[in-house]
């Protein structure tokens, strides 16, 4: 602390003495301050060289960040795995749904085809239905439908798709080896039964009413986008073999029947067997 100023002028030392004391005090305090600064500088230097707390805290921060990154990467990996399995599962469900839609559609196709045959009142309608089912439901692009002349024991072409009907000739049921094998069926064609393929045919499908052969379809080629039969085709071919056969026989009988009004007595005798 510098010397105070007193109000008593007579008691005051000389101006020179005051200046000398002030300077001495000033220099002493300055020396102490410089000493303190040197000490503090040394302390900081030793900290920086030795324990280095600043670098240490950077290391800690970096370490913590590396750990956080590792945790996030782990979490990300888990989420990716979860998303992958969910995608797989939903893909599975989508495939299953598509399968069910296909199955559902196939059953509907069987139902519609059966209905069409039952609704066909004339032989022409039976053949038209047969053509539509083969072409649109099975995907057969080339085929010939033969009807049977039972008296002559010959099969003659009546409908052709994918080629000219006129180019097709009639066949003998006994001389043609493929038709001979179909001439006396034990029932309609069933999946797993003989395809009766030949040089120009993928299959010969018999049209059967009970055990009576009433027609044959020679299946010649698929539509371009199709190259083989699949399971659902076989059940449609079974349906055609049986229902087109019954349809042809029924239409034939109807074409030759006399229209008689229904009568109770006649009906009762029929119901009573």
């Amino acid at each position, binding site marked *: 602390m510098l010397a105070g100023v007193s109000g008593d002028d007579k008691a005051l030392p000389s101006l020179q003495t005051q200046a000398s004391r002030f300077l001495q005090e000033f220099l002493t305090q300055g020396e102490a301050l410089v000493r303190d600064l040197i000490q503090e500088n040394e302390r900081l230097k030793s900290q920086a060289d030795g324990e280095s707390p600043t670098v240490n805290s950077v290391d800690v921060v970096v370490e913590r960040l590396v750990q956080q990154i590792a945790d996030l990467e782990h979490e990300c990996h888990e989420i990716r795995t979860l998303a992958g399995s969910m995608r797989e599962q939903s893909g599975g469900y989508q495939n299953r749904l598509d399968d069910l*839609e296909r199955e559902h559609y196939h059953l509907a196709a069987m139902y519609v085809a059966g209905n*069409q045959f039952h609704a066909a009142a004339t032989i022409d309608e039976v053949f038209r239905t047969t053509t539509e089912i083969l072409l649109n439901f099975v995907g057969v692009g080339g085929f010939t439908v033969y009807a049977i002349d039972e008296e002559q024991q010959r099969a003659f072409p009546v409908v052709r798709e994918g080629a000219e009907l006129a180019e097709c000739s009639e066949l003998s049921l006994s001389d043609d080896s493929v038709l001979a094998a179909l001439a006396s069926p034990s029932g309609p064609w069933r999946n797993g039964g003989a395809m009766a393929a030949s040089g120009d045919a993928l299959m010969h499908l018999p049209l059967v009413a009970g055990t009576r052969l009433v027609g044959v379809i020679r299946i010649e080629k698929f*539509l371009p986008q199709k190259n083989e039969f699949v399971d659902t085709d076989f059940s449609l071919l079974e349906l055609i073999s049986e229902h087109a056969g019954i349809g042809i026989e029924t239409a034939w009988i109807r074409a030759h029947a006399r229209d008689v009004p229904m009568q109770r007595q006649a009906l009762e005798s029929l119901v009573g067997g």
Partner: protein
Amino acid sequence: MIGRSDKQGRVNALVVEDSPPMRKMIVFALSRIRELSVTEADDGVDALRRIASTKFDIIITDINMPILDGLKLVKRLRADKAYKDVPIIIITTEGAEEDRQRALALGANAYITKPIQAPQVIKLVRETLGLLDGG
């Protein structure tokens, strides 16, 4: 998505096909899309008759039909102001590439090949109408 026409907010679809079993199967496949209300037409002439009384949001038509075939129908629809932009899907057989190209050139939007498969029909109609899956 495409504008919905009827009061229940359903999309009106017209199926034009002369073969009854084929028509039934297309309608069956479309019945799996619950947003659709489906009307059937026997051929192109029947389609024009139905179009005169109802506004449809999508038309699915066969090409080979008697009297007014699918190509003529597409042409007539595209000349009609009300049907200038309505999506038309044609149904063709794989061999009929020429018909398909002509129909697309006349303004049809897409095609389905016979024999049709329900999932393909459903997917194409949904995509064409901008409907979400599973509706």
